[in-house]
């Protein structure tokens, strides 16, 4: 068929089936496959295959030494019925994620929105101040110094001086304090990529939309936010939500660095810690894989749920 007639009217292709057409397109675009091949190969090897393999191993009693034996759902039964510590870990993980995820998300958005009207130069400085903790490596250990358990710790010293306490609190070894403090540190470090994405998204909202809104009678910035800004930022809101949720669930290392492992009375014991415990210390790879699979399902599930909710906004 010549290009000329094709341009005149769209004709349903009857000369080839869908499959044949796809095959033709695939051959025509083989350079496209060649270009994604190196990345996709590595991605399959280091991301897809590990997930699949985890699921497979989770049905065995693999211990790295002996040939694995298939035990089907035994690992999962043990996890949900026999492992009290796993339940503690689940509870802590959910408390942590349910607070840190949404709060960091809202904080990222609000700060980005607050600084949106500032002049570009000031905005750059403020951006740096808020973004810095998330890329500064181990600087979060300063929280351990601020809340140090002896009277040289700044917080303890003030509490003593003001007479609120009469004996130092060993914050990171204290059942009551350990979780809230970890949450605070997590929030401190949480203004990352999502925050930058929001800043860019807000800058990208067409100014004429605001003007049109003002003409249509939007009376203040809150109405503007609700009727103009949020709807036009939906893609960024989606992207930011995924990043916030994923990092809220994956916050184990910092907790270990601050409170040691195991944390006092397992008050900050998360699923990640539980996984590392069974894998790194007890070599129960089958069981650890089952934990990994559960964590995977939780993360993906939470992300799917939230992105679905956000996609409904404004519809």
């Amino acid at each position, binding site marked *: 068929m010549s290009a000329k007639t094709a341009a005149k009217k769209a004709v349903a292709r009857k000369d080839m089936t869908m499959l044949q057409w796809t095959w033709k397109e695939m051959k025509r675009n083989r350079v496209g496959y060649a270009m994604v091949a190196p990345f996709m190969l590595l991605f399959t090897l280091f991301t897809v295959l590990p997930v699949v393999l985890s699921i497979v191993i989770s049905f065995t009693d693999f211990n790295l030494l002996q040939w694995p034996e298939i035990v089907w759902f035994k690992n999962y039964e043990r996890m949900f019925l026999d492992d009290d510590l796993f339940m503690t870990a689940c509870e802590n993980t959910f408390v942590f994620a349910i607070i840190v995820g949404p709060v960091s998300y809202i904080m990222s958005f609000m700060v980005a929105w607050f600084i949106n009207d500032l002049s570009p130069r000031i905005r750059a400085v403020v951006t740096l101040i808020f973004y810095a903790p998330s890329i500064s490596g181990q600087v979060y250990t300063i929280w351990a110094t601020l809340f140090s358990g002896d009277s040289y710790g700044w917080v303890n010293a003030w509490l003593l001086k003001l007479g609120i306490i009469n004996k130092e609190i060993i914050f990171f070894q204290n059942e009551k304090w350990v979780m809230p403090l970890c949450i605070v540190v997590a929030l401190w470090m949480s203004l990352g990529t999502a925050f930058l994405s929001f800043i860019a998204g807000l800058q*990208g909202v067409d100014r004429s939309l605001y003007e049109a809104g003002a003409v249509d009678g939007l009376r203040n910035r809150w109405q503007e936010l609700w009727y103009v800004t949020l709807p036009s930022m939906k893609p960024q809101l989606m992207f930011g939500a995924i990043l916030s949720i*994923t990092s809220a669930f994956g916050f184990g290392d910092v907790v270990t660095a601050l409170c040691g492992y195991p944390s006092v009375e397992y008050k900050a014991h998360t699923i990640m810690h539980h996984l590392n415990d069974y894998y790194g210390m007890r070599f129960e790879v089958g069981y650890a894989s089952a934990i990994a699979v559960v964590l995977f399902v939780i993360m993906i599930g939470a992300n799917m749920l939230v992105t679905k909710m956000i996609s409904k906004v404004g519809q």
Partner: protein
Amino acid sequence: MARLRTRKHKVVLNRSAGGDFGITFMLVLLGAFMFLPMIYAICQSLKPLDELFMFPPRFIVRKPTLDNYRDLFSLMDTSWVPFSRYIFNTVFISIVGTTGNLFFSSLAAYSFAKIRFPGAKGMFKLVRTSLMFHSTVTAITNFIIMSFLGMVDTYWAIIVPAFCTTMGLYLMKQFMDSAVTDAVLESARLDGAKELRIFWQIAMPMVKPAWLTLIIYSFQGLWNAGSSIYIHSEQLKSFNYAIGQILAGGIKRSGAGAASTIIMMMVPLLVFVVSQSNIIETMGSSGMKD
């Protein structure tokens, strides 16, 4: 209806003084929460020993000194493996990993964005899904795969997985979607240019902010990588790991430890300061459609 104010024929948006005040107040409050620990960290690194252990402790340093930094460097001199080796390891891993990541990711991103081959959408969605879970989930099986490939205890165990980080590909692909126009590519194709050449000579120059962002993300990740389960040999461990050992040295070393975190932090921060506008530009297209 509210009165519409204009200045120079532009609509002036309604901004109440109360709202301005409230926002500034919140911003200062949150800013203090973010910024003060940073300041404290810097002060700690400049405090002489007697100020580090003073009661009551002071927030701000009174007699700043560089002693802690000097201590840090002399501690580095006494380490069993020369410190320059740790620095070399981190620099080598960061450079090779980042270069490979830039190459593989942008090649794939171009193809995903601009060559609409059957299956492209599905593949990209699969890659995108990996943003939804944390790498801990795959740590166990990754170790098994690494040992199978014989990469445990080599640089490659860190470098090769860094080639295929999702964030870089994702940002690059999104940016290409919006920054590279199909018309330009089409005319190049009509002139008979090969796809690889179009990628390199036309598309890549148009997405410089995205490169820079990808480089910075990859570099930050590799620079901040601490101890790894894949590396046992002391000679192959990272700068960040070695610094961590100093931090773990207990109370005697708290000054040097404070200095070390500041040094580690400076590199990613400076990189961000220099490239901020490019990163923000890239983030402009980071949104997730469908």
